[in-house]
């Protein structure tokens, strides 16, 4: 029973349902229980990409050109693979700078230029209004067709209905109401509309289900599955031609261009920018949406070809392929299915209309109307009272305006076009944003002038190569330029421009517009300069992941403002309550209290500007904030600002420098150590060789002269013993030192009496002293408290010092004195000799490993170079210190101390 009444009831009932869904979502959002904050709803909302053009038009395109409809959906899939790089970056930038639309994004990137912002807004409006008109046309067309049920009458045979009887007109009014109700509820600093997004996601489910229903019924109801359908289609030569795609070698380029085009528009379409970027709740949702969204596209396209072939097989002539989705169920007398399809088509159309209208109204308000209003001297709104309701009213007005102009376009002009061509023409228009946008986030040197030139040229070429011919084709105008070429030059005809043959009009326009656009953007950027603000914004955009998350931390305002001025400015746009909340949050975080006459620091000014940008766009926000901030002329502020801008760079380079110098000194130390090691090895081997040679030569003497006199024999063997002892000592020293260096030495810390150790040490070197006729004196007090220490090691210290003293003694009249002093907190032991002495410059280094005092005349070190190093280590482990004093030729004194308090537990040595 498909009467007009039923159809209207269902249609408007469906619209009512949308209102209900949006209302519910808004209420839940107000309660803080968002229903859209999950990746699935997010992915579904992205599917607003599929409009009535997808729903009806794809089949029409497939029926005419096989796979030709697909690049539009493959492109977004490919962009999704780059989603994590490209989309996430745009989302992050937009969140940091509170971007409200694509116009705002581009304007903000190029120094918050309102010229650029308004250019983008104008191009978007001009490009998108026909696209919205197309949706209205689809609704009207589908209503007309289903209304004639059971007859199948094509719309072009339907007389043009007056506006007052046109369903599409009422749908447009309802959609305007919807967009006004849920799209301009309040001026938000983040400009998100949960109700709208929920409704869009809901519509995405409806259109997918509706399309799948038709697909299944056609494929398995009219035919026995895919195989049967394609087999029957292949019987018809006209259809069989479509089985290989019409992409001859030359045409592959067109296919490629269309993939690129649809990749770009996925972020450049204002409504896609709105759902992907502005309405994004959480960056992480991208992760799932990146594959869910392409999956959705795949699902909604699976049955396009079967329906196209099914329709072509079923209807021999007289039925427009654009309507197959609806007319096939009607022809099968499936009333319910036809109604479902009608609703599905409506959901596809309304979803796009709502989102596009909301996005466009934000742009018109923030980037077209506000900048003009703020600059008109007689309007004086910069100084007038509460403004938030005015901004909202401008938005409401622009929503109504957009929808009415779209309706007018459809009603008076749009009848002349097929569904697909309007959609693609819009695509090419918005793709002009791509160079400035993508260039802007990856290339710091793109300038505002470059972006304006590219955009202007791309847009002009779009109008010339695509809009003009289509208007001519529609018979609306017949300018001479279109047919004979500009100024009568045939090469300058709009299509093919410069005689570029072999591409269809869309691919042709994509090629020329993007080539010239991107070329001018890069070229002009290279030959123009950025001002300070552009420079800063470029850095903030391109390096968004390395800069601090809050823009106020990298502030670029110089100058001063009164906090009260800023506060009243914010109140006029955001209301008293939200302003107070926002300012308090700022003050709390930074622990500031403002008095009545406090001046705002640059961070606060930037913070206020960002807040405002969320409401009225970055370019307008800058103008408003500038009206209350007195920017200082060149001076300290300027210098500070420049410092601020380069602060991070300097910090980085300082860090680098420090790391570099550390490396350098470490390298020097390593080299020095390496040299010492070499020296050490040569010394040690030399030292080892000397006793070894002695032992060997004595052994040879003994071997060669078995009959040596007994006393000579004894002398020689005593020498062997002595030399081997020297060898052993040397090796022990090396081993000891190595143990200490690697921390493997074990220490037995017990109370020891130092006096006893001194005595024993003297006793054990007694023989050495006697040999050299050295007089030794021991001077110890009667009573000395014990120290904590390792007895054997301390003994080693004493013996080392004593034998050292012996080594440097002169041949006659030498003496060695050992003094033990008790000081309040430590013992002090001094070993003095009257030997050759040590050069002043050697006093320190003799304690270093591998270093030796050179005995001038003999020119050869007198030991392994380890004795004193080991001694110092031992003393240090005991918590004491050791030093030497000397006068050349008069002798030297080695003194070390041992504290009474036990040293802390040693980790090393």
């Amino acid at each position, binding site marked *: 029973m498909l009467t007009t009444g039923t159809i209207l009831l269902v249609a408007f009932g469906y619209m009512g349902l949308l209102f209900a869904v949006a209302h519910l979502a808004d209420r839940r959002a107000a309660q803080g229980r968002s229903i859209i904050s999950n990746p699935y709803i997010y992915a579904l909302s992205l599917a607003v990409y599929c409009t009535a053009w997808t729903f009806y038009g794809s089949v029409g395109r497939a029926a005419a050109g096989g796979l030709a409809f697909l690049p539009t959906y493959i492109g977004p899939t490919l962009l999704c693979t780059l*989603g994590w790089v490209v989309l996430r970056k745009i989302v992050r930038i937009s969140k940091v700078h509170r971007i409200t639309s694509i116009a705002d994004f581009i304007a903000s990137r190029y120094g918050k230029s309102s010229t650029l912002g308004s250019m983008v807004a104008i191009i978007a409006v001009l490009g998108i209004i026909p696209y919205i008109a197309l949706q209205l046309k689809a609704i009207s067309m589908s209503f007309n067709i289903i209304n004639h049920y059971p007859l199948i009458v094509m719309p072009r045979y339907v007389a043009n209905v007056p506006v007052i009887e046109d369903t599409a007109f009422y749908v447009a009014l309802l959609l305007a109401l919807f967009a006004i109700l849920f799209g301009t509820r309040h001026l938000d600093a983040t400009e998100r509309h949960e109700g709208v997004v929920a409704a869009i996601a809901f519509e995405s489910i409806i259109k997918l289900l509706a399309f799948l229903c038709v697909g299944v019924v056609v494929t398995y109801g009219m035919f026995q599955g895919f195989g049967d359908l394609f087999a029957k289609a292949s019987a018809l030569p006209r259809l069989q031609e479509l089985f290989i795609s019409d992409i001859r070698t030359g045409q592959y380029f067109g296919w490629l261009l269309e993939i690129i085009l649809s990749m770009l528009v996925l972020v450049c379409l204002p409504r896609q920018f709105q759902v992907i970027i502005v309405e994004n709740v959480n960056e992480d949702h991208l992760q799932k949406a990146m594959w869910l969204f392409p999956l959705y596209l795949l699902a909604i396209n699976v049955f396009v070809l079967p329906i196209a072939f099914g329709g072509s097989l079923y209807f021999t002539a007289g039925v427009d392929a654009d309507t197959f989705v609806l007319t096939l169920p009607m022809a099968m007398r499936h009333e319910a299915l036809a109604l479902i399809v009608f609703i599905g088509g409506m959901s596809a159309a309304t979803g796009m209309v709502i989102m596009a209208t909301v996005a466009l109204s934000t742009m018109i308000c923030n980037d077209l109307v506000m900048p003009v209003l703020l600059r008109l001297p007689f309007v004086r709104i910069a100084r007038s009272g509460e403004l938030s309701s005015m901004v909202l009213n401008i938005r409401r007005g622009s929503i109504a305006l957009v929808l009415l102009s779209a309706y007018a376009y459809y009603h008076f002009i749009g009848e002349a076009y097929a569904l697909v061509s309007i959609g693609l023409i819009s695509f090419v228009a918005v793709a002009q944003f791509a160079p400035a946008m993508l260039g802007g986030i990856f290339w710091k040197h793109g300038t505002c002038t470059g972006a304006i030139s590219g955009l202007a040229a791309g847009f002009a070429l779009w109008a010339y190569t695509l809009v003009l011919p289509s208007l001519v084709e529609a018979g609306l105008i017949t300018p001479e330029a279109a047919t004979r070429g500009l100024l009568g030059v045939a090469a300058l005809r709009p299509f093919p421009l410069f005689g570029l043959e072999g591409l269809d009009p869309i691919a042709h326009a994509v090629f020329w517009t993007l080539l010239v656009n991107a070329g001018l953007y890069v070229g002009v950027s290279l030959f123009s300069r950025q001002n300070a603000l552009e420079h800063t914004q470029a850095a903030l955009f391109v390096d968004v992941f390395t800069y601090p998350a809050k823009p106020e931390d990298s502030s670029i305002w110089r100058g001063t403002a009164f906090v009260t001025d800023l506060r009243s400015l914010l109140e006029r746009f955001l209301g008293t309550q939200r302003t107070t909340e926002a300012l308090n949050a700022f003050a709390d975080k930074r622990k500031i209290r403002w008095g009545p006459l406090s001046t705002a620091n640059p961070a606060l000014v930037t913070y206020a500007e960002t807040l405002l940008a969320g409401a009225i766009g970055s370019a307008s926000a800058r103008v408003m904030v500038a009206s209350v901030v007195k920017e200082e002329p060149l001076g300290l502020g300027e210098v500070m600002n420049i410092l601020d801008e380069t602060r991070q760079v300097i910090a980085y380079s300082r860090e680098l420098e420090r790391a570099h110098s550390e490396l350098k000194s470490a390298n020097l130390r390593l080299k020095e150590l390496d040299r010492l090691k070499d020296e050490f090895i040569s010394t040690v081997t030399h030292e080892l060789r000397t006793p070894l040679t002695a032992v060997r030569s004595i052994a040879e003497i003994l071997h060669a002269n078995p009959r040596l006199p007994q006393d000579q024999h004894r002398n020689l063997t005593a020498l062997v013993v002595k030399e081997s002892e020297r060898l052993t000592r040397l090796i022990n020293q090396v081993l000891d030192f190595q143990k200490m260096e690697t921390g493997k030495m074990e220490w037995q810390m017990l109370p020891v009496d130092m006096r006893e150790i001194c005595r024993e040490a003297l006793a054990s070197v007694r023989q050495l002293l006697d040999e050299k006729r050295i007089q030794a004196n021991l001077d110890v007090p009667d009573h000395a408290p014990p120290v904590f220490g390792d007895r054997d090691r301390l003994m080693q210290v004493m013996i080392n010092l004593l034998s050292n003293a012996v080594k440097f003694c002169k041949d006659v009249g030498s003496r060695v004195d050992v003094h033990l002093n008790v000081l309040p907190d430590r013992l002090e032991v001094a070993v003095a000799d009257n030997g050759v002495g040590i050069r002043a410059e050697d006093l320190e280094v003799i304690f270093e490993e591998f270093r030796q005092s050179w005995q001038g005349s003999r020119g050869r070190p007198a030991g392994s170079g380890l004795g004193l190093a080991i001694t110092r280590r031992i003393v240090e482990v005991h918590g004491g210190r050791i030093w030497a004093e000397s006068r050349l030729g008069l002798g030297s004194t080695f003194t070390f101390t041992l504290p009474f308090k036990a040293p802390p537990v040693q980790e090393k040595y």
Partner: protein
Amino acid sequence: MTPDRLKNRRLAGVFLLGWVLFNYPVLSLFNRHTTLLGIPLIYAYVFGAWALVIVLIMLGARFSRRPPGQGR
């Protein structure tokens, strides 16, 4: 940033694969009058490749997930 870098690299790989699969000359290899399970070869190929790319995005995006709640 390392897990992100890895993810970026994987997904860039998927992009290049998709680019090759959906363009001349690979596409032309399948552009002929044969059928696969009753479906014209080019259609089966394009939809199959499409599904493959989607699965690869899913895998590429899912692996090396950040621990939850670690917002950056």
